[in-house]
């Protein structure tokens, strides 16, 4: 390799390294700002109105900011379910809505009305399973989502009336406010006992949960 080729290769490596460093620095700073926002407003993380899975007395609380139209949330659903199965007594899941996609707010309303009818989990699972059919990001087909919810056992007539109830509207409004305050911009975002993931990924989530469970076991409540 002659000198020029060597110089160009070296420069290319230097540029990429610089870029990677810039990305890393920026992301660290964003994450730090978010961690601070969460630490200062822990009351915004878990709200009494939020749907939960798992025992209320569980020492480890996993908060998931969730968008029913988000593909990654769909992909994480079995993982989260598996974590709950793995720690049936130790972990509870709190779902907060982050309807970032067009039409997601209507699907969230559908979920909330399903909760009033005690059909939350079957409707949630039906909506996630059928997500590719209704959640076209340009043109969401809410009518298709409604069909799938109905097949899962939701009484649509009742749901339509319930959707107008102020408490259903209030849930969505409160969740939207908390998103801004906590600087949540992506779904799913996970917090384990108030701590965010060091970086996004399944292994990171499982590790953080395992760590929190181990901590809770080491310090049993009186």
């Amino acid at each position, binding site marked *: 390799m002659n000198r*020029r*080729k060597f*110089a*160009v*290769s070296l*420069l*290319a490596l230097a*540029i990429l390294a610089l*870029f990677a460093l*810039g*990305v890393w620095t*920026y*992301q660290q700073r964003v994450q730090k700002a978010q961690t601070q926002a969460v630490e200062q407003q822990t009351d915004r993380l878990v709200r009494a109105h939020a749907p939960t899975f798992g025992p209320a007395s569980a020492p480890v609380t996993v908060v998931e900011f969730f968008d029913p139209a988000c593909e990654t949330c769909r992909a994480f659903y079995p993982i989260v379910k598996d974590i709950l199965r793995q720690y049936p007594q130790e972990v509870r899941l709190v779902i907060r809505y982050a309807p970032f996609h067009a039409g997601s707010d209507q699907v969230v309303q559908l979920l909330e009305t399903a909760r009033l009818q005690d059909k939350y989990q079957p409707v949630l699972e039906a909506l996630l399973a059928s997500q590719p059919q209704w959640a076209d990001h340009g043109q969401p087909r809410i009518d298709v989502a409604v069909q799938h919810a109905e097949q899962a056992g939701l009484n649509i007539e009742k749901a339509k009336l319930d959707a107008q109830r102020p408490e259903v509207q209030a849930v969505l409004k409160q969740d939207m406010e908390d998103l801004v305050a906590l600087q949540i*911009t992506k779904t799913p975002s996970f917090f384990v006992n108030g701590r965010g993931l060091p970086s996004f990924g399944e292994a990171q989530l499982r590790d953080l949960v395992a760590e929190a469970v181990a901590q809770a076991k080491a310090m049993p409540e009186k």
Partner: protein
Amino acid sequence: MNRPWSLLVLAWLLASAATLGALFLGEVMGMTPCVLCWYQRIFMFPLAIVLGIAAFTGDRRGAFYSLWLALGGLCIASYHTLLVAGWIPKTWTPCGSGVSCANQKLDLFNGAIQIPWLSLAAFAMLVLLLITYLRKTAR
């Protein structure tokens, strides 16, 4: 001679910085590019690759191809700069959905720099560097 070649390297570094800068703004900081930004990206991104290969192999023709890409980008960036500056009447184009090219917050460092200016400066510098290189290497 080594001097014309360093112009090529300089052009490549400039194109790489602009490309990675655009990727940083878009992918890392999450700024959604408007349509005009996309056209400027279409002209800028290949420059980072073509000029890299040209500098690596010392191929003069790479600079020739790049010049036309840079000129295309220069046109779009000029239009975008004029649009942001408010010199182009808003009546020329109707509003559509999506990100506005004229009213998006495009400034960096608290409004000190508009992104289209940076793009215009990069394309103009590239055109200058490439023309100088091509002249110096002309036989």
